[in-house]
């Protein structure tokens, strides 16, 4: 695996990118959630990341770990529903895992992504195939890991991961929702996209482009 060290500013850059993607897609994400869910997904996430951006300058930027823990707090205080807890827990646990580190390797990055995946699994008591974030996130992280292992540079690896994310999100159409509100529609959820998975795909897509330009 190529040595390429990710810095504090890169972590912050990623969070800002996520915020941009979420805000840009507010209406689209809500619309997706409306088909079999309750139509608040885009709105909820947007209000959370809006607040993250609003409090950005007042946040603790001493270490990536402290920064992410603060992001988690802001989200937990602003976002309700499944998303508030899921995203809050993800950022919190990744922040805790980072500890005082200020430089992280690409191996570290993959490990942190697995922390995020485990957070979703545990908090949401869900797994691959339940038609949640995981159905996009797990294949995407796998692809990223593989790309790193094959020696691709980060920009290139992200591009590959983004493609997998998009495909995986699209593939959620074939799944029956087993968790969250969409689960109540049972078989009728077949044929619809999972909002959370599409969000994962959009985030990686935008991130790949931004990373290249950066």
């Amino acid at each position: 695996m190529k040595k390429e060290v990710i810095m504090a500013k890169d972590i912050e850059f990623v969070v800002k990118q996520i915020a941009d993607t979420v805000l840009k897609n507010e209406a689209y994400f809500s619309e997706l959630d409306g088909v079999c869910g309750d139509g608040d997904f885009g709105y909820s996430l947007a209000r959370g990341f809006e607040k993250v951006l609003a409090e950005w300058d007042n946040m603790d930027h001493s270490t990536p770990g402290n920064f992410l823990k603060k992001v988690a707090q802001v989200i937990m205080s602003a976002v309700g529903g499944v998303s508030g807890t899921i995203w809050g827990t993800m950022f919190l646990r990744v922040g805790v895992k980072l500890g005082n580190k200020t430089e992280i390797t690409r191996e570290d990055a993959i490990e942190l992504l697995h922390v995020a995946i485990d957070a979703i699994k545990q908090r949401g008591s869900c797994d691959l195939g339940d038609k949640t974030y995981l159905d996009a996130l797990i294949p995407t992280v796998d692809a990223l890991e593989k790309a790193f292992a094959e020696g691709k540079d980060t920009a290139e690896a992200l591009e590959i991961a983004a493609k997998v994310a998009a495909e995986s999100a699209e593939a959620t159409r074939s799944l029956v929702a087993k968790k969250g509100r969409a689960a109540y529609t049972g078989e009728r959820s077949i044929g619809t996209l999972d909002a959370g998975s599409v969000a994962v795909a959009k985030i990686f897509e935008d991130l790949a482009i931004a990373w290249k330009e950066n």
Partner: protein
Amino acid sequence: MKKFCNDPKNYVPDMLKGIALANQDKLKYIPDYNLIMRADIPQPNKVSIMQGSGSGHEPAHVMIVGKGMLDAACPGNVFAAPPPDYVYQTTKLIAGPMGVLHLLNNYTGDTMSFDTGRELAEAEGIEVRTVVINDDVAVKDSTYTVGRRGVAGNFFVIKAVGAASERGATLEELEKLGNRVVSVTRTFGVALTGCTPPAKGTPIFTLEEDEMEMGIGIHGEPGRKRVKIQPADKIIDEVFAIVADDLPYKAGDEVALMINGMGGTPISELYILYGHAHELAEKRGLKIKRHYVGEYCTSLEMAGFSLTLVKLDPELEDLLAAPAEAAIHIF
């Protein structure tokens, strides 16, 4: 979108402001946590009771805070469970020496927020118990691990534990009581139209002019099946059977019968529905001891209703009949 509102993002705070201004003598409003709480809580001899849930179900839950009902409600945005932090902060603010009872409707988002909020509160030494309400028979319990939803039946849980808490019941007793009410309460909902969350601006689902949706939840989630619209009596025939067969409610049982409006159905229609439900209940040998016709747990402006049966025993009947206060009132 045809709604009386300002910036849709302020839908919930604007509503809470209205409730607070109308009830300055009795309620406290803390905007940071969408919190409406009784001004005279915590009390030394009373467990404090709170419920969260998303907004859009009014009067549940922010308008049923009052003596003998909830001590606090901290809703999230429309149809979104409250953020975990609201649950935590609210729990802290209302906690007295007898502890705090969390009531929540069984939805993933609410469960997650309340779990997290409870963990944080317990870490500070506050005793918390939780009653999960899941009265909706439209969801087939076995199929999905998420379980049945909590819908309009939550009113009976709140009313019962609210009355018992005023009489000094302990946290453990209230938890037991709440679960007992849940165990005898069943609900099924029907919609004629979808509804439009203000921030979304478009309906969550739309039904054709001749269609209705059977088995809806209270968040505009589509239901069990979509069928051609039927005469009121036919609809009640089907819905009553689904609900009554579920527990089942048997001849000789004393019951409370509720026809709950979903927000956009006028009370004239609710009474048309009630009349036939009453007839069917009598035919089955049920004794209707208490009736409820009106809006208790809504989905914004959705046209629809739900039917709830509660099996009563003398203690429960007495608790339901006990005096209570809430922001919503008639006189």
